[in-house]
């Protein structure tokens, strides 16, 4: 049973009390990022600024209040340190970690290609829409080297695409934007080895118990049926591996249930591809949906073309 989230209305920093916008504070607002506890980046030419802000102080007299706030934050952190903490790290460690990460990007990539980043800031025209798993080991920016501007990306548990008839959800909102507004030319669904979501799908008991994971991965149940049939003599791990690939094909067919996607595929304006990343062997398989062959079948069977394996 969840306890209600705390409501701190009386100390609401965006409330009327602290938000008497004078002309001074409105000028501060325009150039600054609101309510940030740290800002990392280069100002003007080179110096790294580390500024501490607190949410409630965004609009009035920044630096002094910020340092006061910092000390109270430090006190909170000291107290937290004394408590038993299994894995949660000190907030300062997190700030430092993220700061180092961003500054490394800023120095080695952003400043080296500033013109490119400035152009991108005005518009994006990615050639791919990628649907990949949220798994920390399989980010397509790492494994396929996507650069900023190249791939519009959805990441969810088990890289699933629900069919049109399931109604609005996270995944199809992104599909609608990518296909109809950004007009991407390629959709790529990437599955991977040892997928926890697929494993949950394969191991699910129909015992009436519910969880978010079950409610979500059930989208892939047809893939599970096919995988069990195809790999019935193999062990559970092998069946899961079958299902990981079968689920990609199933998602590719689900893409065609969206009329605005099928229309573009039929016209040759949009291509649909599947991928499978095996991180135990470091191999990548890629294939494409053969639309005309898939349509001919009539049973909704998936027909592939242009298969490749990179290893």
């Amino acid at each position, binding site marked *: 049973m969840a*306890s209600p989230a705390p409501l701190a209305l009386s100390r609401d920093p965006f409330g009327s009390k602290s938000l008497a916008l004078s002309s001074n504070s409105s000028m501060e607002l325009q150039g600054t990022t609101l309510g940030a506890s740290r800002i990392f980046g280069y100002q003007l030419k080179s110096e790294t600024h580390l500024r501490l802000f607190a949410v409630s102080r965004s609009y009035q007299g920044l630096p002094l209040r910020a340092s006061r706030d910092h000390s109270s934050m430090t006190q909170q952190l000291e107290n937290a340190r004394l408590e038993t903490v299994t894995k*949660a790290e000190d907030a300062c460690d997190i700030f430092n970690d993220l700061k180092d990460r961003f500054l490394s990007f800023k120095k080695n990539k952003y400043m080296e290609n500033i013109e490119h980043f400035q152009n991108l800031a005005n518009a994006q025209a990615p050639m791919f829409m990628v649907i990949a798993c949220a798994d920390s080991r399989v980010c397509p920016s790492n494994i396929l080297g996507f650069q900023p501007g190249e791939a519009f990306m959805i990441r969810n548990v088990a890289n699933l695409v629900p069919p049109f008839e399931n109604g609005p959800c996270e*995944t199809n909102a*992104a599909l609608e934007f990518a296909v109809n507004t950004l007009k991407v030319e390629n959709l790529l669904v990437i599955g991977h080895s040892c997928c926890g979501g697929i494993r949950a799908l394969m191991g699910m008991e129909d015992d009436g118990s519910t969880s978010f994971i079950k409610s979500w991965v059930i989208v892939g149940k047809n893939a599970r049926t096919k995988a069990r049939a195809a790999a019935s003599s193999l062990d559970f791990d092998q069946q899961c591996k079958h299902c990981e690939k079968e689920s990609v094909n199933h998602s590719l067919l689900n893409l065609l249930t969206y009329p605005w996607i099928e229309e573009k595929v039929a016209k040759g304006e949009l291509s649909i591809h599947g991928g499978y990343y095996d991180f135990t062997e470091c191999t990548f398989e890629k294939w494409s949906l053969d639309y005309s062959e898939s349509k001919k079948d009539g049973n909704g069977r998936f027909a592939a073309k242009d298969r490749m394996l990179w290893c």
Partner: protein
Amino acid sequence: MYSVTAELCSSSCTSTLISQLVCIKEGVTMAGQSLDLAIQGLKELLREKEELNEVAVAKIEKLVDELQRIRPPFLDPVVINIRNGFNEFKINKFDKNPDLYNKLAEGQNPKYLVFACSDSRVSPTYTLNFQPGDAFMVRNIANMVPQFDQIRYSGTGAAIEYAINALHVPNILVIGHSRCGGIKRLMELPQDDAFDFIDDWVKIGLPAKVKVLDEFPNYDFYEQCKFCELVSVYNSLENLRTYPYVVREEKENRLRLYGGYYDFVKGEFSIWKHERPIIPRPPILPPRPL
């Protein structure tokens, strides 16, 4: 490959020509890159070798036709792009860090659950240099976290449930960004042209929009969008607290919530630890499990 076709152009024996052409085709399907050159060479052959008999001409024409049809997978720049990306990853990262990747093959232990926008310009892997294993990552339009709803938003719920209950991730980071198309759409609503799925999704951010319009009514539309990009992160962070496991882990000090904002116009990144809510909302009822 090119030298073979050059040799053929000077050869006058038809049967040798045919058998060598068959070898070229087999070689080309493996090599891929010499395809253009081979096709070019064969076409030249057809033009220049007048003594070829009809049978030879027919076979060469058929071969050219077949070679041209296998062109797309090898020369499609889209495929070359990702193939090269994968090769670079394999050579420069995977093969150079066998200990790390062997460990990752056994299981993942990420320090962060990240919510980021699907926008192609803001991949946190790129801007925050996340390596494999660092961050369990959800990407959706406008980096939104909806309130607990097992029917409508099972995708987000599944990710949070898995990250916390299975992976015990200690930090959640929700990152907004500049020039967000999803936030802009939210701020523009209602519109005559309806996007069924996008509009339904971005409405998750309505409390943020209401707050921005209430507090900053005299700012221009683009400034209001910028404020909303930030306030929406707060809204999502607060929505995280409608998930029982988030509340439980925060209470036990095993989980911290952070907000972030990536301004790619200025090249700046902001981060804060999320403590107090800033958007007043009605008391949140405990979720009704199905």
